């Protein structure tokens, strides 16, 4: 395999970004779109070439897929600790390359239609390229610090793209929120990295993840508050991942992030960047698994499960379709985390890991598709809200069909992609813990319910009063829809476990028919319920909602987490701490310094009477001074 070609995969988007960014005034919008698409087309082909070479041509050596690493020193910290830049190729990296390439390419193509006529067209493509570059870099990272670097870069690309409509206050606020919340999570990540670096002396994944490596064997050497230092580090790293993957309670930025252009939501906030957290945990999976008997992994599992449930409940109540999709994304990410959390390491025990990656893969396809469809709808009706839609199936047949396929996929209806991956997750969970399995199953039902709720709401039901008739989107937008729809159908049949497993050896999986049946039933139940509620305009849904009353309102308001955070940040951090700091600085610190000066001046004012202008006072002072001096001298002499 030619590594130089692999290195080109991230570099091409970088070059595109630089070209578009530096010459954005000179390049015509139409051309910049072509440059972006063309660049990514090459990257995508190279990604497929890499996959082909890695899995098929090179294949396994001694029963496992070898990890290929090529790196160069970027900066030295100490004799052992340094940041390398390079590429690391192993099964999950290759898989992610495919995901990123495919989705990004689709979004690029789609955006050419969606963003047509926008003033910042070139800028938009530049940012997209920047993001793609960063994401590639993150995927291919060879060590913790490299991943952190690109982690931050995807964060900032996300910031720039969410805030793309920068004249809109809400977009600006959302961008800021996304950045700050993930930044807060990254703080945990960074401290985690620092701890790992200090205790293991390396940032390299190869060394860290080696089950016979010193870091894994010696984890118990240091402890802090009952847990080993490395467990703490892994928990902190997971906090970083949780921030990016919008795990509870760091999820609040993701719904707001929907302020960005819809293709961006599809690319960044559904398919690629948000799975970075999952990818990070998967990347460090051996560490998570072996250190302190997977203590940190349990946390991952529970957080994942809770988030899956929590987000699904909220998703039911939302009326903004992009937000529904956002919560759906959260929920599915929770699923992936859950799967990772329940996974074992060797052979078939690695089912959770495998299924998580599998779900990541399939989810990327159908969720991107859902978003792009939503974008197509929004493009047509100029609104995000369900109340402004309805009955669109007549006007937008392609969008309708593709959306339906995606919805079926996410609902886990066989034989679409979602069914296969979700089924594996449920199997893995079932083998680990019944409790988590029940949650997972319940979420599967909820998922089907809410996704079909919006499906019916958009394409069926009563038509709104459209100002101008909605029409199907242009070919540049529908083509990606069709491609993704096709992928959503077929990717489930890839024998994923052959390629991806924690120990990289691969294993056989078989459909567990009873569990699959239960899962499918749950999905169908959800679909059925939403058929009853939302297919035709009726009162049932409202009645049902009012039955739940307070709980519904809570869920509608996302359990008031935004308000809670606002309270903590605005009221406490800004108004109390920051204001106090600013005032303290002005009043006391500065006050002291200025006070010293003023005190000196006022002392000067106070003692001015000494210089009374009376020559006799001067004489008195003279004599008194002499006497005092004499007393001092004689006193000193006596002692």
């Amino acid at each position, binding site marked *: 395999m030619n590594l130089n070609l692999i290195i080109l995969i991230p570099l091409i988007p970088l070059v595109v970004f630089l070209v578009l960014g530096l010459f954005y005034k000179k390049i015509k919008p139409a051309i910049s779109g072509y440059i972006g698409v063309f660049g990514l087309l090459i990257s995508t082909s190279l990604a497929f070439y890499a996959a082909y070479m890695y899995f098929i041509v090179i294949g396994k050596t001694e029963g496992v897929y070898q990890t290929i690493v090529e790196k160069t020193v970027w900066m030295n910290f100490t004799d052992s600790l340094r940041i390398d830049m390079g590429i690391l190729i192993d099964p999950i990296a290759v898989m992610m390359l495919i995901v990123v390439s495919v989705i990004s390419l689709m979004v690029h193509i789609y955006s050419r239609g969606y963003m047509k006529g926008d003033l910042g067209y070139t800028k938009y493509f530049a940012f997209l390229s920047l993001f793609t570059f960063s994401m590639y870099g993150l995927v291919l990272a060879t060590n913790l610090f490299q991943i952190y670097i690109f982690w931050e870069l995807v964060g900032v690309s996300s910031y720039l793209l969410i805030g793309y409509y920068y004249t809109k206050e809400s977009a600006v606020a959302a961008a800021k929120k996304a950045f700050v919340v993930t930044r807060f999570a990254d703080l945990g990540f960074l401290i985690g990295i620092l701890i790992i670096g200090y205790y293991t002396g390396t940032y390299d994944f190869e060394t860290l993840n080696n089950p016979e490596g010193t870091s894994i064997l010696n984890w118990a050497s240091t402890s802090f508050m009952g847990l080993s230092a490395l467990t703490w580090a892994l928990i902190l790293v997971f906090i970083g991942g949780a921030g990016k993957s919008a795990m509870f309670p760091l999820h609040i930025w993701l719904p707001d992030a929907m302020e960005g252009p819809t293709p961006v939501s599809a690319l960044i906030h559904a398919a690629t960047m948000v799975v970075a957290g999952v990818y990070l945990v998967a990347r460090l999976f051996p560490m998570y698994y072996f250190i302190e008997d997977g203590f940190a992994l349990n946390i991952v599992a529970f957080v994942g499960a809770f988030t899956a449930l929590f987000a699904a409940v909220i998703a039911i109540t939302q009326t903004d379709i992009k937000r529904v999709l956002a919560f759906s994304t959260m929920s599915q990410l929770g699923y992936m985390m859950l799967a990772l959390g329940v996974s074992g390491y060797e052979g078939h025990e690695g089912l959770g890991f495998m299924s998580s990656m599998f779900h990541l893969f399939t989810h990327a396809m159908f969720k991107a598709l859902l978003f792009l469809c939503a974008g197509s709808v929004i493009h047509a009706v100029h609104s995000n809200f369900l109340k402004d839609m309805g009955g669109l199936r007549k006007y937008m047949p392609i969008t309708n069909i593709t959306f339906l396929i995606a919805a079926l996929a996410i609902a886990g209806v066989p034989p679409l992609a979602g069914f296969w991956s979700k089924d594996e997750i449920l199997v893995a969970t079932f083998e680990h813990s019944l409790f988590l399995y029940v949650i997972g199953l319940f979420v599967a039902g909820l998922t089907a319910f809410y996704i079909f709720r919006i499906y019916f709401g958009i394409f069926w039901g009563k038509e709104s009063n459209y100002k101008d008739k909605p029409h199907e989107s242009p070919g540049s937008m529908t083509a990606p829809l069709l491609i993704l729809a096709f992928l959503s159908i077929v990717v489930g049949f890839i024998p994923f476990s052959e390629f991806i497993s924690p120990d990289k050896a691969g294993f056989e999986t078989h459909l567990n028919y009873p569990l699959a049946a239960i899962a499918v039933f749950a999905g169908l139940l959800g679909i059925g319920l939403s058929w009853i509620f939302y297919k035709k305009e009726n009162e049932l849904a409202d009645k049902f909602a009012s039955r739940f009353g307070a709980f519904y309102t809570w869920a509608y308001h996302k359990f008031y987490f935004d308000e809670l955070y606002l309270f903590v940040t605005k009221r406490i951090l800004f108004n109390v701490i920051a204001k106090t700091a600013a005032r303290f600085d002005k009043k006391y610190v500065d006050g002291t310094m200025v006070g010293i000066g003023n005190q000196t001046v006022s002392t000067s004012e106070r003692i*001015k*009477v000494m*210089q*009374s*202008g*009376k*020559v*006799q006072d001067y*004489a*008195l002072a003279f*004599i008194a001074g002499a006497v005092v001096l004499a007393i001092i001298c004689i006193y000193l002499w006596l002692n």
Partner: protein
Amino acid sequence: MIPGISIYEILTVTSILFFIGVYGFITRTNLISILISVELILNASVVNFVIINKYLFPEALQGVYFSIFIIAVAAAETALAVSIIINLYRQISSVEVKDIETMKY
């Protein structure tokens, strides 16, 4: 050497003289009186020099001629002071010490 009178008594007198001078300097309100007080201070020193020379170190006359010089300088000083005071009197028709306080603080 004055028989029957020791150096201590004389030195006590000169010290008293000195402090009378200082007291006068500080309390008098008339510039001329202050000048007289200064003379007292100087004279205390003059007597001191003479007495010390006579009683303690009679072999040389250092103290004595020192005192002569002091008297001469004191005379010059007085003359100068009085002339300045007269000049002031021309301008403000006063030789009171309270009238020379325009510059202060």
